[in-house]
């Protein structure tokens, strides 16, 4: 069963230069106990998706035009703000931010911050000692040494890796159903990255928590994720089980992404020619046709619909003509 299901989500941003179509008919899902990687170039809308799920997109300038975000069958776009804060945000869905230093208030001891985060908004607080023990046990699980002594310390007294562990602890503490991790290790160096990601994986697998992992690192996806969603210019290009996506990449954009990995090729490093299209005036038809070497006249006119080319492996590309292929969103 899908914990999170995003259907045909459309999000615009109103800017001085015009309307930016940040998310354009995005469809994806995260099933129970699954780690789903959301990959794509910078500016393709990954973080906007995360913010939409958490209901923290500032409106205006953003406008959610259409679509639904179903969390355990409940449309988050139609849940009242009070409900969102008391039951869902920070309780059932938690968030691991990119920069752990900016996420921790430098003026409060970490123990206080974890406690406040856990108890805030609760009508009847649990007993202080119970909460303290819970926090200590979580810190132990994220492998912070002698956690009871660390509660009184300030964020600047921890190393970058430890801060990221603290933030992961904060995300795990409320026992959420879904964790959204927005490039959780981009602020860390490579050796620590691997440790933290594997720790995160083992912790969520123990609990059966689902994770939507936003990243631009295909290596991380290969190592960690059960499924992967490749995003391009606000749309999902391909959604597939990780193994299937790496062995049978079907969307030309996915091929190009995999080709541009330095370790997968001999000789020159190959990038993808061109740049991500400006989303104020996106190309008609398939968004990728301007950079695609297989572009056909059809690609410039119609947006391809998603098609299941392999079991559970969905692609949005005219190279796979199916009956849904001519259904046009535009």
């Amino acid at each position, binding site marked *: 069963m899908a914990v999170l299901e995003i259907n045909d989500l459309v999000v615009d941003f109103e800017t001085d230069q015009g309307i930016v179509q940040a998310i354009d008919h995005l469809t994806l899902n995260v099933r129970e106990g699954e780690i789903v990687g959301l990959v794509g170039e910078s500016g393709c809308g990954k973080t906007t998706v995360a913010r939409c799920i*958490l209901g923290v997109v500032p409106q205006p300038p953003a406008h959610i035009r259409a679509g639904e975000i179903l969390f355990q069958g409940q449309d988050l776009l139609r849940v009242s703000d009070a409900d969102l804060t008391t039951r869902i945000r*920070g309780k059932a869905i938690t968030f691991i931010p990119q920069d752990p230093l*900016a996420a*921790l208030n430098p003026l409060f*001891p970490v123990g206080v911050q974890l406690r406040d985060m856990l108890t*805030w908004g609760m009508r009847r607080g649990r007993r202080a000692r119970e909460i303290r023990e819970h926090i200590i046990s979580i810190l132990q699980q994220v492998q912070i040494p002698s956690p009871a002594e660390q509660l009184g310390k300030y964020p600047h007294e921890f190393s970058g890796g430890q801060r990221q562990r603290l933030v992961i602890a904060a995300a795990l503490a409320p026992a959420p159903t879904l964790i959204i991790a927005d490039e959780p290790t981009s602020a860390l160096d490579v050796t620590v990255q691997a440790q933290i990601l594997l720790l995160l994986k083992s912790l969520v697998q123990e609990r059966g928590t689902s994770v939507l992992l936003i990243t631009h690192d295909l290596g991380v996806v290969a190592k960690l994720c059960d499924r992967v969603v490749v995003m391009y210019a606000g749309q999902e290009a391909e959604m597939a089980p990780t193994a299937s996506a790496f062995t049978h990449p079907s969307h030309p954009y996915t091929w190009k992404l995999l080709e541009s990995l330095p370790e997968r090729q001999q000789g020159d490093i190959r990038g993808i020619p061109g740049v991500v299209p400006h989303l104020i005036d996106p190309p008609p038809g398939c968004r990728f046709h301007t950079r695609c070497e297989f572009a056909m006249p059809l690609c410039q006119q119609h947006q391809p619909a998603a098609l299941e080319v392999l079991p559970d492996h969905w692609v949005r590309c005219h190279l796979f003509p199916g009956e849904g292929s001519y259904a046009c969103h535009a």
Partner: protein
Amino acid sequence: MKPMVLDTQGHAESPARQAQKTARLAWPATSGWWLLGQKILRDRLAVVGLCIILGLLCTAVLAPSIAPFPADIAATHPAQRLRAPSVEHPCGTDTLGRDIYSRLLFGGRLTLLISLTVVGACIVIGVPTGLIAGYYENAVSQLILRTADIFLAVPRVILALAMAQALGPSLPNLILALTVTYWPWFTLIVVAETRTVKKATFVEAAEALGVSPWRTILCHVLPNMLSPLIVRSTLSMGLTIMTAAVLGFLGMGAQPPAPEWGAMIAEARLYLPDAWWYATAPGLAIFVVVMGFNLLGDALRDILDPRLRRGRR
């Protein structure tokens, strides 16, 4: 044989030094105030500034008991007019025969009263307006910012002069004029800091958890801007003393016989250069006190905002 402990330079450490280190570790090294104090004490110029300010505070409090002629604020002794500095009158006497040293000590009270009141009032006005204007982006914040712009567009001394003139020269009016012309600086600093802190993930997280805006502002935004606020307040003390002296010199502040330093210089200028001590004493007092606040303010800025650290050794 005892194991030798080498410090970073490779020298062997004496047991006394080790003990000292352990003792230092026993302190709660996490306390920000304690760290701040320690860093100030390590900065020679900051210590000088701090001593000057503490000296000013002490003389202000103790003025009635340490001044040799406390009555000389108002009394006149025409027989002793314009005496050069001597053992009896360390700074000489003025045109009415009053002991300048005693008047200086009492003048310190006025100086402190003016600068503390003005800076305090500026904080009281500037911080809330700055927090509101920085945190919200609505008509009220625009109103605050544009009002501040209007005040900033007029030179401070001229506006204060005009105000003091219009309201009549007196000490309360001087304080009022200085406050009215100075609060926008605090507002602008607080606005800039608020906008920076507001972008931090922890503020967004607090909002996302449903913490009320007021609580967010008071518990998360305000404490994170204390450093620039402390620095600005300290430097403002010096600036305010200076401006108050200028206005006093021009006759807009405390009226005679009040021993205001600026007014004392104004009286003394008629007797220069013969009675050199008459203007020198209050001039030096202003110079030293302003320098004290500036030294401490500069050091605080270097300590609290390492990004702005200049080559100051």
